[in-house]
């Protein structure tokens, strides 16, 4: 399952992810990481059965952890099948079939939110976005 780890400015300098991995022995597969001076955000995969442990370890160190259990949601009524979302998705969730209909492979979504900003028709939403 995917989780999002938010790290605030007070803790951004500490290796809390590494500490949590060492403490629990649970592996995290990081798929995205954004850091700036005031804040960090990491998206990672963790096995479902280890989630509670990892949650404990990370939150006790001051991180905020959210489950990303809802991948990109596609509203077909709003979508005009322009395909603008295609070129920004890092994992190729979107494609066009032979008759130029949009195909959405939600399983590939890493919930980065890029397509949500791109879609001119507000046809894409990410429940856990922001």
């Amino acid at each position: 399952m995917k989780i999002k780890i938010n790290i605030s400015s007070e803790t951004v300098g500490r290796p809390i992810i590494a500490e949590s991995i060492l403490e629990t022995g649970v592996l995290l597969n990081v798929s995205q990481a954004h850091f700036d001076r005031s804040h960090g955000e990491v998206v990672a995969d963790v096995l479902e059965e280890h989630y509670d442990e990892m949650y404990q370890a990370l939150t006790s160190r001051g991180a905020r952890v959210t489950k990303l259990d809802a991948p990109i949601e596609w509203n077909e009524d709003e979508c005009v099948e322009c395909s603008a979302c295609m070129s920004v998705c890092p994992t190729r969730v979107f494609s066009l079939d032979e008759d130029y209909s949009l195909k959405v492979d939600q399983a590939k979504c890493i919930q980065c939110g890029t397509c949500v900003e791109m879609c001119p028709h507000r046809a894409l939403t990410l429940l856990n976005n922001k």
Partner: protein
Amino acid sequence: MVKKTIHEINAKIRDGSVNVVTAEEMVNIVGELGPEGAAREVDVVTTGTFGAMCSSGVWFNLGHSEPPIKMQKVWMNDVEAYTGVAAVDAYMGATQLSESMGMDYGGAHVIEDLLRGKSVDVHAISHGTDCYPRKVLDTSLTLEDMNQAIMINPRNAYQKYNAATNSSKQTIHTYMGSLLPRFGNVTYSGAGVLSPLSNDPEYLTIGTGTRIFLGGAQGYVVGQGTQHASAGRFGTLMVQGDLKKMDPEYIRAANFTGYGTSLYVGMGIPIPVLDERVAQATAVKDADITTNILDYSIPSRDRPALRKVTYEELRSGHVEIEGRDVATSSLSSFKRARIIASELKDWISRGDFFVSMPVERLPENTLSHPMKETEGVSFVSDIMSATVVTIDKDASVYKAAKIIMETAFNHLPVVNKDNTLAGIVTAWDISKAVSLDKFDLVEDIMTRKVITAQADEQVAVVARRLDQHGVSALPVINSMNQVVAIITSDDISKLFARRH
């Protein structure tokens, strides 16, 4: 030589014997029969396009209230419409933004809401006259309540349009959508093989008075669109149609993050095949239509073209830029362009739509000139302060504090030995370092990712950069990355204060 007249074609439409094909189908027909054979076989070719057309809007006549009002300003759902014409006429432009909801809602949404049967809140104000005594009006209206709702789009159906990419290090948000850093993607618009003006590039049949498909209803070409630049094959059309008869499938509000609202408009133009020259023109393929990929990170009217591409390459999903494979995607819907071309084909086959000859040809060889600017343009070099105080990166934080106190400069560019830029420290960074008991080197507390300016950039461009990054000063660097000056938001405010 094949020669047909509009009357002959319309007679065939009337008796049901007309042969209509879409522009996509015409490619193969001309391929097989040649232009002459195709001109004999085919009577009408239909085109279609469905994409963002910012230059769109609707003229509303709201009817008179009791007592009547001469609307000086009017808002629908808090989006201002243009008045300044007769008492209760107003033009709602697609990109006008809501005064309370900002970029989330605009004129395009008002138009779509009305089309979907929703009512909109109308608020108008006036100075009051003897004939129109009322000063304030509040009501709510549906499309049915309006006397007229005439869509007039001053500039639609670009003959071709540039493709967009971004060479900078940040994502930028444009009317061409989100453009990812370092040539992360390419976006483009237009229906290629189905695009109306690409199928009649010499305007043999499309001109003033041409009957068209607009938003699901019959509309007309008014004439050349604004910025019609036919000399460079950048023709545009001004079109009109009755919003009351349109279909929300083909008129859709859009939001471009960071840019604002726009309207997706579905348009289809029939091309009567009068002779082989017209037949040949409608045989155009994606591979024949070229455009340029422009670098939208350059905030200038003259964006550099990175390369030429064909629509065939663009439609393949990726193009090569500087040796890299870059993902492309369209902003307009080819699927809907197809639906429009075939719906128009059905209308004509069923005898519900007749073709027309323009009463006036579109002008050829027009150019679109850049704006003449009479106020001198200000460059960074005009207002920057060349007496910039820098600090070495291995100086102490204490020394930086001292310099700031002595010189009253709030921002110190941090430099390497050769005066190249390494970072920046501000009075705030120093206070923070002190409060954390960090008295080490400037290098440890400086910001490394510095936003900079160059002396030959325009102030307007740099002012926006300050805003965007929420900073108040930019070191000015030369081509060797050496610090030559600094420009602050104060310098810019003073410039504008002088002007107003």
